[in-house]
């Protein structure tokens, strides 16, 4: 069964190679590869036993001298993220069909290359491997954004790149420290879990990891790369960044931060939650008056991620499960949002809310799908967003009631800015620009239908997904609590 995981991880890489040399057929090759991955993921999910154990474990020596192993496996938490990745990649590839990218083979190869990196991040059980995946996912997306992005792309992407890599290098520092502390001298996650570090050590390891993750998510005040990058990146890049890449940070917190330095979390978790919650309100407020829809969604993403982050640090089953499902939901929704904006940009060459309006009257299909996505984002019950947000809020509530009162403002603010945007873009009278808007068709329709279907299905019947991660999440929380109570 392990072979399945090897196949899963390296199939996209093979796909990337094929795609790179596929010439004109690159986009189809990429899609085929992505769909095969998706099918594999489905097979994997079917074979997954939803308990707390790590399954499909691979463990091969890699760089033995440095104690580095190719150690990967899947548990419930990983599975959700793997599912997210392999579900969204084909959607994103399909969503890019509206563009005629130059050097398409390189473009699609990079996407698939990134997929391998992401899968490594989400399955790694070896800190070094995790780090490698972490960076391996970053490079392709940098190129995607910088080569195919907007006119300000170079500067903005440089900032993005340096910023994120700054975080990850400090994480590397933390990893090295843990490695040195580990008497076994390897990077095995289980060995890291067993380390007994004192409070000071845990504190600074917490920060070395947290900053990396916080930048990736991004949590206030490490977020300023994000709106610029999202705005300047090509739609595909934005979707990759917001849909999947951001989850690396969340996953990192769950997998690497909480269980390794529970005392650090205990000492600094409040700070993290406060930052996250500030981020929610702050980003929501900023989103209120954004003039560019893409930027607005970018800020909204900061707010949503802030909620997820706060939910995780609340350290309880509901918050964590909420984070799991919200990762999935946010990925789907944000991809949908950016895709709709991309469709609009493709046709109108602008994402300025003031320039748009009235599209709903000429493109009803788009209007409806967009509406569903918007309501998914504002967490209307019956959509996927609600499940996550509800669980997250209940998780945060158990941490602190005032935290939830402030974090809960997202419920209101989200509605305000999202509906403002929807109104500005879709409603009202058509103007000279939007009068000639063509409704969605072909691949656009397919993508949006898939996204809407996912939003509704997850919203109505989330149980299978929740079930996948439940045991793993509970075990993780127990583990953390045990560590908290046993020592000190």
């Amino acid at each position, binding site marked *: 069964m392990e072979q399945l995981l090897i196949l899963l991880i390296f199939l996209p890489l093979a796909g990337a190679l094929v795609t790179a040399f596929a010439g004109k057929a690159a986009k189809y090759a990429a899609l085929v590869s992505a769909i095969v991955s998706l099918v594999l993921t489905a097979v994997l999910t079917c074979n997954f036993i939803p308990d707390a154990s790590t399954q499909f474990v691979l463990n091969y020596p890699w760089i033995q001298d440095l104690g580095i192993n190719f150690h990967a496996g899947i548990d419930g938490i990983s599975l959700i993220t793997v599912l997210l990745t392999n579900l969204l990649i084909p959607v994103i590839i399909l969503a890019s069909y509206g563009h005629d990218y130059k050097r398409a083979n390189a473009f699609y190869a990079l996407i698939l290359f990134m997929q391998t990196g992401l899968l490594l991040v989400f399955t790694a059980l070896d800190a070094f491997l995790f780090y490698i995946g972490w960076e391996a996912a970053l490079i392709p997306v940098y190129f995607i954004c910088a080569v195919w992005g907007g006119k300000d792309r170079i500067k903005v992407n440089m900032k993005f790149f340096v910023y994120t890599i700054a975080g990850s290098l400090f994480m590397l520092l933390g990893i090295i420290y843990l490695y040195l502390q580990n008497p076994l001298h390897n990077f095995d996650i289980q060995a890291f879990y067993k380390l007994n570090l004192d409070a000071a050590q845990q504190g600074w390891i917490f920060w070395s990891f947290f900053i990396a993750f916080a930048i990736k998510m991004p949590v206030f005040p490490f977020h*300023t790369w994000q709106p610029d990058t999202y705005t300047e990146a090509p739609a595909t890049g934005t979707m990759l960044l917001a849909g999947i890449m951001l989850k690396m940070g969340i996953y990192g917190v769950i997998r690497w931060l909480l269980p390794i330095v529970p005392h650090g979390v205990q000492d600094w978790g409040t700070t993290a939650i406060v930052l996250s919650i500030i981020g929610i309100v702050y980003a929501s407020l900023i989103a209120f*008056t954004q003039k560019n829809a893409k930027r607005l969604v970018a800020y909204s993403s900061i707010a949503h991620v802030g909620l997820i982050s706060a939910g995780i640090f609340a350290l309880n089953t509901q918050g964590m499960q909420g984070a799991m499902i919200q990762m999935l939901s946010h990925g789907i929704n944000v991809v949908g949002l950016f895709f709709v904006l991309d469709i609009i940009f493709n046709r109108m060459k602008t994402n300025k809310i003031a320039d748009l309006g009235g599209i*709903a009257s000429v493109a009803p299909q788009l209007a409806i799908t967009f509406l569903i996505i918007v309501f998914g984002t504002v967490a209307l019950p019956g959509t996927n967003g609600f499940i996550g947000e509800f669980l997250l809020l209940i998780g945060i509530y158990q941490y602190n009631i005032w935290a939830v009162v402030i974090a809960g403002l997202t419920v209101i603010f989200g509605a305000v800015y999202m*509906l403002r945007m929807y109104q500005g873009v879709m409603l009202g*009278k058509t103007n000279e620009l939007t009068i000639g808007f063509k409704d969605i068709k072909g691949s656009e329709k397919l993508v949006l239908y898939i996204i809407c279907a996912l939003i509704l299905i997850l919203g109505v019947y*989330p149980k299978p997904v929740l079930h996948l991660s439940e045991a793993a999440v509970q075990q993780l929380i127990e583990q953390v609590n045990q560590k908290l109570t046993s020592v000190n």
Partner: protein
Amino acid sequence: MIDLVWLVPLIPLLGFIINGLGRNTLSKNLIGFIGSAVIFISFAISVGIFFALGADANKSHEIFLFDWISAGSLHIPLSFLVDPLSSIMLLIITGVGFLIHVYSIGYMHSDEGFGKFFSYLNLFIFFMLLLVLGSNYIVMFIGWEGVGLCSYLLIGFWFTNSSYASAAKKAFVMNRIGDLGFLIAVFLIFTTFGSVEFSKVFPQAAQLMPGHATIILITLCLFIGACGKSAQIPLFTWLPDAMAGPTPVSALIHAATMVTAGIYMIARSSVLFDLAPVIQHLIAIVGLATAVLGALIAITQTDIKKVLAYSTVSQLGYMFLGLGVGAYDGAFFHVITHAFFKALLFLCAGSVIHAMHHEQDMRHMGGLRKKLPITFWTMLIGTIAISGLPPFSGFFSKDEILAHAYESNKIIWAIGVFTAFLTAFYMFRMLYLTFYGKYRGTHHAQEHIHESPASMTIPLIVLAVLSAIGGFIGVPESLGGHHWLSGWLSPVIGHHAEAPDHATEYMLMAISVVGVLISIGFAYVKYNKQNQVPVADEAKRSVLENLSYHKFYIDEIYDAVIRKPLDAFSAFFYKIVDRKIVDGIVNGLGWGTTEASKGLRLLQSGNVGFYIFMMVAGIISLLLYTYLSI
């Protein structure tokens, strides 16, 4: 029969799906038929359930469908609760809903979005049913937010008008403020009782001491939720704006059903509220204030729908007053009667508007009595019903609330009665302005005025009948009835306040009836005899009139106190904090490094002498170190 309850919401959902998918392909007749038929089927089933429940000794049935969310100790099943309260709500929703659907066939016939409209209506019914059927707070919340969504969609139905779209947004956002309260209440309930199921929460809650802090917090949050949905102060301003939607929507959502969800929710949670007298007082006061405010504003409005909207606000305030004084059944009674007569009034107004080609300003109406006879007569019935003249339905329900208010606090009662007088006044003002006097519109329009088609008038007639006789389900004992409704609801709403003794009750009734009659007379003199017409917008008014006409400037106050500061904050955070400070620090680091680079590279002057000098300096310092360290 009761086990089939899942069909009740499911069928409208099917209608939504069919109409939604076929909105461009199916013919209007078919859409109208499907849209109405599904509601009718639901109605039929609801009736069946109602009688089945009546025959059943067990008054509470939980129908489990599937597990929805489960995380840790939190388990939320999707299950329905059929009990007297929900069964009666089913009847109202599907019954009134059906009539409004039928009405809409006529009303919306010429609209492009006919299919869309029906699908939205069906969806609304679905969510509303979910709201009342949910056996736990979360399912209720789904419906709660779902109806908010439909309200958003339907208010913004004519979205090309951007002020309509804004009204829709406003409605949704204001509802959301309440929803947050609801949500927090749910969290509190979950952590306090370990469950959100009604069947587990209420028995546990009954064990608690009254005035328990958590309970107070829970009920407060629930009340905030109810305020949002049921348009109470301070969250009521969305409801008048919601009149932007097509009139059947106003009738169905913003009069008969959705806005009463708050009352339903509080009635449902009466066990909790009974334990929190402080909150009950708060509810009573807020309700009363809302009732007065709504009535005061309604007096001077010129838009026929706005009058009805503020009247709705006012009536909702009444219901809250009822809840606040512990008359849950009275409040609920008013919900029912209000559903009848307010739906009727809105539909009549719709009929007028339909006839006037979407003219809503009463200053351009007048003398329509002859041209629209059915509309006139039905509207007259509705007006009398709302004014509270016996034996029309409004009389009984309003009186029950007032009687309980009197028991609770005389001042509250006095204000309540005064509000009732106001109600009678502005309702008859509306009636006179619309149907009496001379026609004040353009001649061109006058020629086209005609009575509405049967699909519209039949629902009017049915509703008029209901408005007229609907009060008999709750005839108080003092008038020889035995208050069937109260008895029916007693398994759900265990505790209810004692009614005052008969003599007092007679006196209260007399006062209110006489007062109402005087008000009507006053309106008659002013608007029929003297043919006064409200002045144009820009004309000068007295201070009080001006305040009323401009809705006490509440929208403007909100705008200045909340929206503008928030937008200013937004701009401040974005332009100053985010761009300048947070991003400025990041960019500053980059800039600093570049500047450092510019500076440092000057060291590389190209001059060998300088290089060697620097090297020597380095050597000297290293030697100094050596000297110092050994």
